[in-house]
């Protein structure tokens, strides 16, 4: 069974009298330890698909299995639980809590986890920060860190609950190209260590880091191809 299996996924919005089909019958499966880029112009349904894959939203119809569980029909609270346990988000704008230190930011998913006792949280958060080479920045607040460092904190936060997938939405969009390359190198490492990574981007050279590119157009999958990296 694939890690993610999506079948005939529709997301339809009613805008006045017109029906907008943001997703118009998408079927897709992603295996464990795959490295996938999702691409497409704006309005292609890229963001909608990402929101669904991130369990931030539910489809109008269709099936969505994650790790064997159908999440398409879940309630808000069940989705929150899935997001906490199964998904590690990395955002374009980092989305760190500005008043909290790196350590506190990374601890946050553990706090909502509910199964990790308080005395283990700090160790787990430290371990995640060390993995992104920020062991010496634990007490810093986001405004004391560079853009690249902030994104590393966000990646540590995504890793800390040991999620099934890491979902990165334009992770280099707010970074200069050199820093962007460093962050992408980090994703490549994480993939090599066995993580499953889904990357949403509109930059071809970023998407090339993945093994597979899914191209969306008008709410449908237009192309689903392997990259040179995989072919090699």
């Amino acid at each position, binding site marked *: 069974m694939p890690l993610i299996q999506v079948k005939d996924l529709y997301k339809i919005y009613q805008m006045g009298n017109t029906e907008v089909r943001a997703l118009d019958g998408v079927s897709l499966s992603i295996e464990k330890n795959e490295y996938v880029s999702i691409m497409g112009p704006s309005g292609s349904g890229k963001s909608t698909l990402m929101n669904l894959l991130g369990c*931030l939203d539910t489809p109008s119809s269709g099936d969505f299995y994650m790790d064997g569980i159908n999440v398409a029909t879940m309630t*808000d609270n069940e989705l*929150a639980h899935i997001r906490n346990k199964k998904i590690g988000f990395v955002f374009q704008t980092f*989305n760190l*809590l500005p008043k909290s230190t790196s350590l506190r930011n990374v601890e946050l998913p553990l706090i909502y986890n509910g199964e990790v006792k308080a005395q283990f949280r700090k160790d787990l958060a430290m371990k995640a920060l060390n993995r992104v080479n920020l062991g010496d920045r634990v007490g810093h607040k986001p405004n004391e860190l560079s853009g690249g460092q902030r994104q590393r904190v966000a990646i540590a936060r995504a890793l800390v609950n040991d999620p099934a997938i890491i979902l990165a939405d334009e992770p280099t969009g707010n970074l200069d190209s050199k820093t962007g390359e460093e962050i992408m190198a980090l994703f490549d490492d994480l993939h090599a260590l066995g993580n499953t990574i889904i990357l949403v981007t509109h930059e071809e050279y970023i998407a090339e880091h993945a093994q597979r590119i899914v191209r969306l157009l008008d709410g449908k999958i237009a192309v689903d191809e392997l990259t040179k990296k995989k072919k090699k």
Partner: protein
Amino acid sequence: MGGFFWENMRIALSELWGHKTRSILTATGIVIGIIAVSLMSTLINGVDGLFENSMKFLGRGNLYVDKWPWFGDEDWWTLRNRPRIELDMAEDIEERSTYAIAVAAQRGRSADLSYKEYSSEGIFINGVSANYPDVSTIDVEFGRFFTGSEDRTGAQVIILGSDVAKALFPFEDPIDKEIFVGSSRFRVIGVLAEMGKFLGTFSQDAQVIIPIKTFNKIFHGPWGMRRITVKVPEEHIEDAKEELRGIVRVLRGQKPEEKDNFAINQQKAFRQQYQGIKLAIGGTGLVITALSLLVGGIGIANIMFVSVKERTREIGVRKALGATRGKILGQFLIESMLITASGGIVGLLVSTLASLAINKFLFPASMSFGVAFMAIALSATVGLIAGLAPARKGSLLDPIEALRYE
């Protein structure tokens, strides 16, 4: 869940700390509200205590036969023309009443006292029968009360109230000294224990007591108060009052159709009068002070709405990382309750100090544990209610929208 409580406390504390000025200003509304409510309750308690203390002077089982009713709206001229109370009725009442435990006659007026170079003017001279201690709460601290035979023979003996004793005898033992009441010579045989004021006005300690026969001998004329006090069992006081009314009417030869030309007073009248005033003033006071708390609560609700709005993005992040609605709700509720509870504690401290000052300079008042508990509980409840709508709004935010919020 317990872990969340502390986590939320931590978030709330750092949030409030991060907006110090705003938090202090917001909490000030609650501080003022709690000061108002708790001081008001403390004052009402204090007045209550004062009242109950005064009521001790009027025994619960006492009926007072007077010319004037204590309260009422009868025509002043009618009351004025009533015959004065004939004190020799006391014996007849004692004989005829089935309920009476003791019946004491009493006259009173004011006069000037002097001893050597010391003098006290306008002191209340209480002329009573020898069984007066049975119907009152006086307590002879030094010396003794007068005897029945001293009363019958009109002996010139006197018992001093504690303030009078202090004024006339600052350095000497008053017992067996001779003092002047007007121009008559009296021998001091006793000093009363301190009693305090009746309802904060008439000092029970600024009186002297002499035998009623002696009083009649010295003071002529119709002036001054005359009263017969009848002590009855407290549980039969209403029946005893009816019986007493009948006895006095018969003694006075009143015709059946005539209205009573006397009044029978009792402590209950004071109590009813007081309850009415207390309800009116206390009730109004509490409503007004509660309004100030309400205003404080509205301030909290307002600032919480602002806080939720400002932190839309944060709510989005928290939800993306797995916070459920309940957890977001709890976070904001704890925050608003923390503001109001701290406001409540500060308010309580201020009003405790204020009540200490009132106790020292005005009248007995003290912050009871009940009032303190109520103040804290009330402020936390205000926080809970004021935070409910903003917290609910935050908890229902769509994470996608919230993450996109700039």
